[in-house]
């Protein structure tokens, strides 16, 4: 056991810090759930890419730095420490890219990864359908393979929903039923779809906060060139499960994010201590938040150090999801309790360096729901990790 950084890791941290200090926008960008904000965030991805910071864990050949997971954690710490913008291409860089690297053809990798890194392609998710939420195997959206003289393609018909980033994204990845009449997780394929194709209609879904973070996508005889199949036809479920593993697992929510919130919460409490202490349980919740953010960080470093040494990811995927989503709720609920009547104001200017608590509070509400609801995660833990019998 050795819980220290190497000299090279320390140098890496310095380099990240110094670059971010020079480039992080002084003014916060608009929300990427607005047209203007989306463009600003896309430009920020390009800026990151210009410094080779947009995908540090990727190989250098496709725009990354070949960082290991410990360096990635360091990068994330500096990123959140600097108050840098949220990543509009998280779907692509953290979720799709690992799947592409594992299942993609060489041509696919060379085509997609650099464009993802540069922000030229922003990716949306296409998992859920109206009848397939927690129960993803209930997918019905059809992709029929047609071998035409001009080239093979998939003819897509159906609907996706809760598609994150889809309102302004360029591409979407997801599961489609390529074998007519197949059921459950059989006969599904993982397909990459340009959202500019004819026959695609995108209907933005307005969220709690009034903005449109996700959308419905309607496919009406959409022709997707067959080379955009990822992995083998019919093996989409396995390909997707790898993605879902990443999603729920290590890289969806880096600990730095929660440490930044915990630190902001401590500062909020300290700045309003006199009123907050009228409810003494608030102080306890603040300290507990900090402890849990630390625990999440330690746990992630623990897993990362095991993976770096060639170990494999275990049940952390499901326990992580529950832990960070409940922590995020706790922190934001505590902040709202401290803020009292100021909490409801959408136009409250945050004090210097203050967190956008109301925005964060609303977003935290989604944590226990997306990326596999916490109920589903508890089932998985009970059945796969504890070995309890299925219902």
């Amino acid at each position, binding site marked *: 056991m050795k819980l220290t950084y190497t000299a090279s890791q320390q140098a890496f941290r310095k380099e990240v810090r110094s670059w971010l200090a020079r480039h992080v926008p002084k003014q916060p960008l608009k929300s990427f759930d607005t047209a203007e904000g989306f463009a600003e965030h896309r430009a920020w991805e390009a800026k990151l890419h210009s410094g080779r910071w947009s995908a540090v864990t990727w190989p250098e050949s496709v725009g990354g730095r070949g960082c290991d997971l410990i360096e990635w954690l360091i990068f994330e710490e500096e990123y959140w420490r600097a108050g840098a913008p949220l990543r509009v291409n998280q779907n692509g860089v953290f979720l799709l890219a690992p799947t592409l690297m594992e299942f993609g053809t060489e041509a696919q990798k060379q085509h997609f990864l650099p464009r993802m890194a540069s922000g030229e392609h922003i990716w949306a998710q296409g998992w859920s359908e109206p009848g397939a939420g927690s129960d993803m195997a209930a997918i019905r959206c059809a992709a029929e393979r047609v071998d035409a003289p001009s080239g093979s393609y998939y003819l897509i018909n159906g609907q996706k929903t*809760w598609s994150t980033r889809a309102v302004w994204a360029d591409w979407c990845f997801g599961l489609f039923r390529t074998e007519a009449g197949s059921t459950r997780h059989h006969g599904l394929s993982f397909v990459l779809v340009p959202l500019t194709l004819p026959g695609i209609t995108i209907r933005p879904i307005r*969220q709690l906060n009034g903005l449109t973070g996700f959308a419905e996508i309607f496919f009406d005889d959409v022709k997707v060139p067959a080379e955009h199949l990822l992995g083998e036809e019919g093996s989409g479920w396995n390909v997707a499960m790898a993605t879902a593993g990443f999603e729920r697992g290590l890289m969806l929510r880096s600990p730095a994010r929660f440490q930044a919130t915990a630190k902001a919460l401590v500062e909020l409490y300290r700045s309003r201590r006199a009123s907050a202490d009228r*409810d003494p349980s608030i102080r306890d919740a603040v300290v507990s938040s900090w402890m849990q953010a630390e625990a999440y960080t330690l746990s992630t470093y623990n897993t990362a150090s095991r993976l770096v040494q060639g170990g494999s990811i275990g049940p952390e995927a499901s326990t992580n999801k529950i832990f960070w989503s409940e922590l995020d709720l706790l922190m934001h609920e505590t902040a709202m309790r401290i803020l*009292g009547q100021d909490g*409801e104001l959408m*136009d*409250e200017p945050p004090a210097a360096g203050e967190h956008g608590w*109301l925005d964060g509070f609303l977003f935290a509400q989604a944590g226990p*729901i997306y990326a596999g609801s916490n*109920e589903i995660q508890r089932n998985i833990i009970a059945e796969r990790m504890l070995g309890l019998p299925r219902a």
Partner: protein
Amino acid sequence: MDFDFSADAIALRDSIHRFLMVEAAPEMLREIWETASGRSAALRAKLADQGLTALSVPESHGGMGLGDLEWVLVQYELGYYAIPDSLSDTAYLAAHLLQHLPNGAAAKQDWLPRIASGQVRVAVGHPVNRLVADAELADLLLLWHADEIHALRRDQVQLAARTSIDASRRLFEVRWTASDATRICSAQAGAALWQAVHDRATVALAAQLLGLAQRMLDLGIDYAAQRKQFGKPIGSFQAVKHQLADVAVKIEFARPVLHRAAYALAEQQPLASIHASQAKLACGEAALLAARKSLQVHGAMGYTWEADLQMFMKRAWALDASWGDRSFHKARLAEHVLADGVRLGPGETFAIPEPAARATRAVRSATA
């Protein structure tokens, strides 16, 4: 020992319930949310037609002369239907302040009949709130200044609008100047009146929060019974059932606390403030839990603007922190429960403490 409301009060509640079910469907709320003023003259007129603006105005001033017990039932319905209107501020809080002004105040004659008839909106600026709700459309603003009560017309104040997450709340920073001309009540008489109004607002919000909790529970039940996953309604899964059952338990045990608080107000009991704080905490807790659990049961759908749930959640979050946030009310409870010589324990629930009776007399004399 009788927890039942009068038959008349129940009949009033039932008729308001039926009325709002028809007149205040979620689609209408959405429309009003999106208007610039956030208020509907048509809705207010209908509420007045139902007699709600006249509820606690004395009969001598054209009202029905009813009180806190009727209001608590009405407020619950206002919460259940998330009514976007300043009815409570106008017809309950302002009406209370005005009718209990020391004798001879001209403001009573000027305003109470117009409140009763539904002609005017009145905003109340109490120091526990940083902002004043519904100031923009108010014909009259009753404002606190060092315990005095000041009455100002809309054109005598300057407003800056603030934006709440709950679009049915319209909040304003109010700038104004206190003067002898605007003062309608001295600090000596005003202190107890402001306290009485704060207690009523606390119970009113508690009732609205409980109504909101029940509505969010109902929305969660409906969704869980209809939505299918894995081939079954999600409401048949224990994980969903138990979350909603917990909400039901919270609501069941908040209700009598709320009713007792309203009774204590009506009876001007010395512990009315304590009971009011307890009611707001219990009902607020039920509402916050209902919001969380109903959202969880709704899944992604609950996170959308389209689903009705969001309107009720936002209102619950906002009201829970209004007229004294949880910390404020908890501190008041703690001071009472942990004080030297307080009577707690079996047999003390309905006891009326002696020493505090002086404070009650002060209120009574102020309102005589």
